[in-house]
């Protein structure tokens, strides 16, 4: 089986996020950058499925050459090769989906694994759009993935419970938090990753033009909450909840 996994370069989930002075972007100087945690879960799942069924895991990132770091990290985990599609600046989800669509048409994977959302933009759109552009089925928010023949059975985290769906391959799958725990790269893995093939492509080569269907107009800090109070005991808490907050 051939797997295509996306690895987006994002700010560390532990980083303190600050907005720049003109509100056009966040400050990334000195901020640690990581693989989007949901994408990392996707790479792990593809590696496990490859270990079981054989095949190849190809990782894809879209961005500046800085994203090579994330591609190499994924290859250190065990992915076989990487593709960097070079693009500067903002992209809306439709552009991202169209780029991946082109790569998928070239690569012909059986399964595309993506994170359910990137923890920076939190949009949760690109994978589903991609599935529609390709005319493929999708299984989002995967908790468990099993492949049998030309089908994948996926247990999904849905509202109110767990849903099981079956999708015919090729399909797009997005990962939820509990699908697996990604492995750490081993030292030999890191050494090997340096020599694994990494192809670079441009939007022109892929024949994709970036769309601006959704334009970011500016960023602001959320309204801040005024500091609360520490109460000494349960009696005081109940009194405050009854008489001050009128919450009970």
């Amino acid at each position, binding site marked *: 089986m051939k797997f295509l996994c996306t690895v987006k370069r994002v700010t560390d989930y532990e980083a303190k996020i600050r907005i720049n002075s003109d509100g056009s972007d966040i400050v990334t100087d000195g901020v640690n950058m990581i693989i989007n945690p949901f994408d990392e879960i996707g790479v792990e799942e593809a590696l496990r499925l490859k270990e079981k069924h054989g095949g190849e895991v190809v990782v894809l990132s879209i961005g500046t050459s800085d994203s090579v770091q994330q591609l190499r990290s994924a290859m250190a985990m065990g992915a076989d090769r990487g593709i960097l599609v070079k693009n500067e600046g903002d992209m809306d989800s439709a552009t991202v989906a169209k780029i991946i669509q082109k790569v998928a048409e070239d690569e012909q994977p059986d399964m595309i694994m993506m994170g359910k959302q990137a923890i920076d933009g939190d949009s949760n759109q690109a994978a589903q759009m991609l599935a529609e552009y390709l005319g493929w089925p999708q299984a989002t928010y995967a908790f468990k993935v099993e492949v049998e023949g030309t089908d994948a059975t996926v247990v999904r985290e849905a509202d109110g419970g767990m849903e099981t*769906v*079956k999708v015919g391959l090729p399909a797009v799958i997005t990962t939820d938090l509990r699908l697996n725990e990604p492995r750490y790269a081993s030292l030999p893995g890191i050494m090997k990753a340096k020599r694994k093939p990494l192809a670079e492509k441009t939007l022109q080569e892929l024949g994709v033009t970036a769309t601006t269907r959704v334009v970011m107009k500016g960023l602001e800090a959320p309204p801040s909450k005024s500091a609360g109070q520490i109460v000494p005991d349960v009696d005081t808490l109940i009194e405050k909840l009854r008489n001050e907050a009128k919450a009970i």
Partner: protein
Amino acid sequence: MSKHLVVAEYAGGSLHGSTLSTITAAQKVGGDVIGLVVGQGVDSIATEMGKYVPNVVIVDDAKLANRLAQPWAQAIAAVAQNKGATHIWHGATTAGKDIMPRVAARLEAGMASDISAVVSENTFKRPMWAGNVIGTVEVTTDTKVVTVRPTEFDRATAGSETNIEKVETAIDDSRMSFVSFDEVKSDRPALTDADVVISGGRGLKGPEGFTNVIEPLADKLGAAIGASRAVCDAGWVPNDWQVGQTGKVVAPNLYFAVGLSGAIQHVAGMKGSKCIVAINKDEEAPIFQVADYGIVADLFDVVPELIEKL
């Protein structure tokens, strides 16, 4: 003038509260609002939806009996085109997040996800970076797809007469099929609808902490139960209980955070609550920065006392 198509979400034969908040968001833009009910045998949902919007469209088809993204997106996009909708709306629930990007792709429409405010007909605000940042986005396409964070909009109130219409559209076969649904059964109010939410974290030490400490407090207050990611991951409670950036967003009148540290990813899902109470033995825990009232003490002492005295 804008023409809005609001997709109804329903479960167990009744309309989901998130749909009512979504109607309110659409009304904020102004223009005609049409409700859309997709499924099989959904007349009663359409009647319910009709209490809130003047026109309801039903697409009733055996191929739509289960809420699968591919056929549903096809039905929704077809009705949107047929009705000349400018905006297609859904709550930013698991279902809305699953289906609506496909609708946007089918219509080559721009999409704004999980909006927290309507600025104008084409401009919306939405939380990003786990709610650390509020972004303002402009959707430049004529047709716009929008999903709405339900906690940020009041629910629409029932109005007047409605007109219900059935529409047929061809639905292609897809390589997606429904197998089963393992429902988390509970007599408690739904997490996203509840007036009071009691959430627990790793401080509860194990699933019995939820049974012995959290549940009796929830019983006392008629509350729903939530949880941090850590305890869902550990399998102490159902995944469906996770509150946060990547779980559920809740905004009850009263939120108890018990034995959870208040990581930014958790806070992203509950900071809109009207009144937040934190119980944690570590006075440095970040949860105290968002709490209205905090008690620095052992939860195994505080909660039983609270239950007794309430």
